[in-house]
């Protein structure tokens, strides 16, 4: 007897069902990060006030992902475009969504300076340890020894340096009022909590809010499901510690009250 499935998959309300299933590869973590983000936006009830900006790289595939105002920008330039929007209309809640190449390499000057200026924006960076859209080259976040198209014998830290610790850098240079965290798609509820705080912090007008999300890229890692999850949970989470690096006092107080 055939079983008819009556339940549609549950999507966040701010997603656009017309553009689903999404365009990311099977096993890609972007969809999970954007699910957590969508849930956080739903819970805060801010869909109508959000301007979502996406970078170049795989993140650009999110240009029609949400039923929210969206602008797709250039490689590394999502942060300044969204800073420009926020400075021109502070009523809006702006989200700059980028990959590790966009945030830590070609657009690093924008991340550093927006963080130091304490721009009231929320930047979300998806770390999958490689340039995935262009075919799997080394990224600032590529793990020591990891093979990529431009490190075919593995990343040699003496020659190519160590993986960039983005949240640690942002936490070190930001000032009072900023929120910095690193989450992972292997702990989605925690990641959603970080993203929600990063948005709440912007809404409260406190300061720069930054969340790095550890993500997966089985296509370029050339891994099966088991290997993908092992690389994320063992190698990546071993090098990139998951947790909150900077939480404004008011955000901690609000959290306690909620509990």
């Amino acid at each position: 007897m055939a079983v008819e499935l009556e339940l549609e998959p549950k999507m966040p309300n701010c997603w656009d069902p017309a553009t689903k299933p999404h365009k990311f590869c099977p096993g890609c973590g972007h969809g999970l990060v954007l699910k957590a983000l969508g849930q956080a936006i739903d819970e805060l009830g801010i869909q109508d006030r959000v301007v979502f900006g996406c970078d170049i790289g795989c993140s650009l595939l999110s240009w029609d992902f949400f039923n929210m105002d969206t602008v797709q920008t250039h490689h590394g330039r999502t942060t300044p475009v969204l800073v420009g929007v926020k400075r021109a209309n502070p009523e809006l809640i702006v989200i700059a969504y980028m990959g590790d190449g966009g945030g830590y390499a070609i657009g690093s000057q924008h991340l550093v300076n927006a963080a130091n200026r304490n721009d009231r924006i929320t930047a979300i960076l998806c770390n999958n340890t490689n340039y995935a859209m262009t075919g799997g080259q080394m990224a600032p976040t590529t793990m020591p020894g990891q093979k990529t198209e431009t490190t075919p014998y593995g990343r040699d830290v003496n020659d190519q340096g160590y993986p960039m610790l983005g949240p640690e850098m942002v936490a070190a240079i930001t000032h009072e009022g900023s929120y910095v965290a690193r989450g992972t798609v292997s702990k989605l509820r925690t990641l959603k909590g970080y993203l929600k705080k990063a948005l709440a912090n912007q809404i409260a007008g406190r300061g720069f809010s930054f969340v790095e999300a550890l993500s997966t890229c089985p296509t370029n890692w050339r891994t099966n499901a088991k290997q993908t999850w092992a690389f994320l949970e063992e190698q990546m989470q071993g090098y990139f510690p998951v947790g909150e690096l900077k939480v404004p006092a008011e955000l901690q107080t609000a959290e306690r009250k909620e509990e």
Partner: protein
Amino acid sequence: MSETSAKPVEGERRAFMTGNEAVCWAALAAGAEIMYGYPITPQNEIMHYWTRNVPKFGKRFLQTEDELSAGFTTVGGVLAGRRAFTATAGPGNVLMQEPLAMAEAMRIPTVVIIQQRGGPSTATVIYSQQEVTLTCFGGNGEGLRIVYSTSSHQELFDYTIKAFNTAWKYRFPTFVLADGYQAKMRESLTIYDPASRGISMVPTEPFLGRPGKIGEGRTAAHLRNTYNIEEELNAVLEKDIADYERYAPEIAEYDSSAPEDCDLLVVTHGVVFRSARMAVRDLTSQGKKIGYFRPITLRPFPEEQFRQAAARARQILVAESAYGQLLKIVQQNLYGSTVPIRTMLKPGVGITPEEITEECSAILAGKEA
């Protein structure tokens, strides 16, 4: 944004100021709301005067980390629906081509003031006309831009106001192209409230963050500059190019004065036009049959009017402070014409009326200098 009711300029008044100051007062008079900028000589004083006026008139300013950011934040400000602008020069203009290519691709009405300095590279901080090609055709695109080349402080004021209206009316990135001489020297001009001259400002509107609930009265905006296939891109470009060509005749501006039997037509733009006009007046008073043509818009170029003027001339002299950047545009617009073109190309240096007079006299006497 601007809660302060006082108008920056009431009615009109005579002023004696630098070109950079004239640009700032024009932006204020035009109701510009936010400037994003990065320091580079010779445009710095636009920011200096703007920041001094920010609290007085409820304006905003952001000093960015570089010109990439200045251009992209300006794009963001325009997307939020503000009359937003930036200013740059030389190597800054090079960096700014990336954000302005995005503005060109997405029909974002940015306004940028360019005060040309010497090039290539760092070169001089003083003067040139070497950013014509870059400003008209920079970026990985087709040059769907509007470029006003000014020659005086009055024009800097007039065309900075006009640039905001042109940009927002036609939705193409719009430039005011001047130079370090115009930026730094002081001269007299009349500054005015556009309303006092019957000039109304084209209203702005947000591309992102429009009021209202999504699904009830408005849909979500999805703005992009990336396409999946060649035909998809081509369809967008065909439409933008058709728009540009349709609007070009009403945007194009020029100034020309030439006798019917014109022995020599002097073609210049920007501040060099002032020398050319003086030389032409001088030689005309000596009985010479000489005239001038000056494109005010370098993009779109006043093609028809120029071809008509050239058709009545026995020969043409192109004079510019660059090695053939205006010349290339002139040659392209004269395709098919056999009128001889003489040149006076002096990259990176100014050209005096006396030098043009001397060159013209030699050409008219049948012996080139």
